[in-house]
């Protein structure tokens, strides 16, 4: 009988990032941070834990179910942040009140959601994102989308697609035909899941007139390029929906100027699973990844639930998802190269230290042996540790 070895476990849905992965993650985060900064965004860091009531603002029950919660000393409920949008809205409303708008912020951080874990979808995961607060014009939305495209290009992805939607489009239709609020919720739920069969059942039982039913059942397949917007425009008569489509056209025209329009199409069925969105919403997809790579949109009401009126728009991108997509698409991302291994003979340690310092100052990655070695031993160490070059101080 073999004796059982004690193996310490880590909690469900978490993972260790070891040498190569951690290095790749760091590099991609650095590249994204640089990209965001080049568009004039400033990094912010907020606490990992917040009060549950803060994180629940703007998010009804759904997200709360998936938060990791615990108590502080005075028994108030704390939670690990499930995203960065809410904490940034809090910061903007409380700490940055006096700053001139627009506020342009970015973050690179971990967030926590209790989900069924799978590759690219852990309970603790890393996000890079931006929030642009204080501008309600389509120029802001277009900037956010353009940065999202740039971010995916920066990561080396070439085959990806951004789909744009507008939550007001379906709201306009549902309000126009007087669908009761509870049923509106049900329709939105089934739209998020693209449960078209379930949606058909809800509509059939809703008592709506057949024309309204027909339009609503078409929303999930309103998918295409600019000609689809025209088609959708003719389908609806209410002003809210038409404004939503005009808004998408304006954003698209700016994206043409940015030269990223070839990555963008429209999908009016996108409403995203966060309830705080009020306008344009978008998701980015890439082949080989069964879920969106990035997503975002406009959320004009959320900051005001913290007491300050402030329109806002933004997006977040999953770092692990980017890495996974690159791996699956065979985009080589080798970790940083290791340059020089320095071995030394007895009595030559001082000279070896001098050599190592010089090379490090010259920007090389250098490992210095801890014990004297023969040249052969040093060569073996160099290969085993993956260094490109050996310097042997033999004396």
């Amino acid at each position: 009988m073999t004796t059982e070895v004690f193996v310490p476990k880590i909690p469900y849905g978490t993972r260790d990032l070891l040498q190569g992965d951690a290095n790749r993650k760091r590099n991609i985060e650095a590249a994204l941070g640089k990209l965001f900064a080049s568009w004039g965004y400033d990094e912010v860091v907020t606490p990992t834990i917040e009060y549950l009531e803060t994180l629940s603002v703007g998010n009804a029950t759904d997200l709360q179910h998936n938060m990791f919660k615990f108590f502080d000393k005075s028994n108030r409920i704390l939670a690990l942040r499930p995203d960065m949008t809410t904490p940034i809205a809090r910061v903007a409303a409380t700490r940055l009140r006096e700053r001139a708008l627009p506020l342009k912020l970015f973050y690179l951080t971990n967030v926590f959601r209790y989900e069924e874990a799978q590759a690219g979808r852990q309970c603790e995961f890393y996000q890079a994102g931006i929030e642009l607060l204080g501008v309600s014009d389509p120029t802001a939305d277009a900037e956010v989308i353009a940065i999202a495209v740039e971010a995916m290009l920066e990561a080396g992805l070439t085959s990806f697609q951004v789909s744009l939607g507008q939550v007001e489009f379906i709201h306009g239709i549902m309000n126009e035909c007087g669908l009761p609020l509870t049923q509106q919720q049900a329709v939105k739920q089934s739209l998020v899941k693209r449960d078209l069969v379930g949606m058909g059942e809800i509509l059939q039982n809703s008592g709506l007139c057949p024309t309204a039913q027909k339009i609503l059942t078409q929303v999930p397949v309103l998918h295409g390029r600019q000609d689809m917007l025209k088609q959708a425009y003719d389908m609806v008569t209410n002003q809210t929906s038409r404004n939503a489509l005009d808004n998408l056209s304006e954003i698209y025209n700016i994206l043409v100027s940015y030269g990223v329009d070839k990555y963008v199409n429209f999908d009016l069925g996108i409403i995203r699973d966060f309830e705080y969105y009020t306008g344009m919403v978008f998701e980015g997809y890439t082949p080989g990844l069964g879920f969106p790579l990035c997503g975002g949109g406009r959320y004009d009401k959320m900051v005001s639930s913290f007491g300050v009126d402030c329109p806002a728009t933004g997006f977040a991108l999953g770092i692990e998802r980017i890495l996974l997509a690159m791996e699956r698409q065979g985009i080589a991302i080798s970790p940083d190269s290791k340059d020089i291994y320095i071995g030394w003979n007895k009595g030559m340690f001082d000279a070896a230290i001098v050599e190592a310092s010089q090379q490090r100052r010259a920007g090389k990655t250098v490992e210095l042996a801890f014990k004297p070695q023969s040249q052969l031993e040093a060569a073996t160490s160099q290969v085993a540790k993956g260094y490109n070059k050996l310097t042997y101080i033999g004396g």
Partner: protein
Amino acid sequence: MTSSDLNYLTVALPKGKLFAPSAKMLADIGYTAEGLSEKSRKLVITNEEEKIRFIITKTADLPTYVEYGAADVGIIGKDVLLEEGKDVYELLDLKFGFCRLMVAVPQALQQEKLSDYAHMRVATKYPRVAERFFSSMGIQMEIIKLNGSIELAPMVGLAEMIVDIVETGRTLKENQLIEVAQIHPATARFIANRVSFKMKFDRINRMVEDLKTLMEGGVNGENSSC
């Protein structure tokens, strides 16, 4: 060999009773491949001309293949979707494989109302569906997960009730079981991976439209076994 190849469409079909009608329906809209049969020893059957791949999976696993994008689209019973709760797009009710998820008890144990069954043991292949149904009624039950021959459980005293899928109810009758509540009707559904639905939208949407046309034409419906 995943759905990351944008030129190919991977279709997942379930083993078992839904296989034949599903394969026929797809063949009617031009989606088929040489040697596509449930008994095929090949795990992946490809139609190079039409750029279609078929994979045949165990029923309960099918939504998983689609959720992860290993298959772009698939056909599967609503009962499996309800139980597995996977994140897939449900695009079309194919209106065959009619059956229902329901609660049944042995005649001798029949009670007046559902809440009278509280705290009894329920044997089922669908533990999540059963749990959700009873808790939505505010009834606590002890759920026992089995992998088949559910009707056996009340006969040998493993459970008092069962939650199972029935088509005609004949098996229930033969085992002196009485249906006391319906949980959900179920038919075959056409499902899609959420990213494939975007990246291969034109192709998948055309399939949905073709299937709809086919169903309106009434070509389907010859086989409705569950």
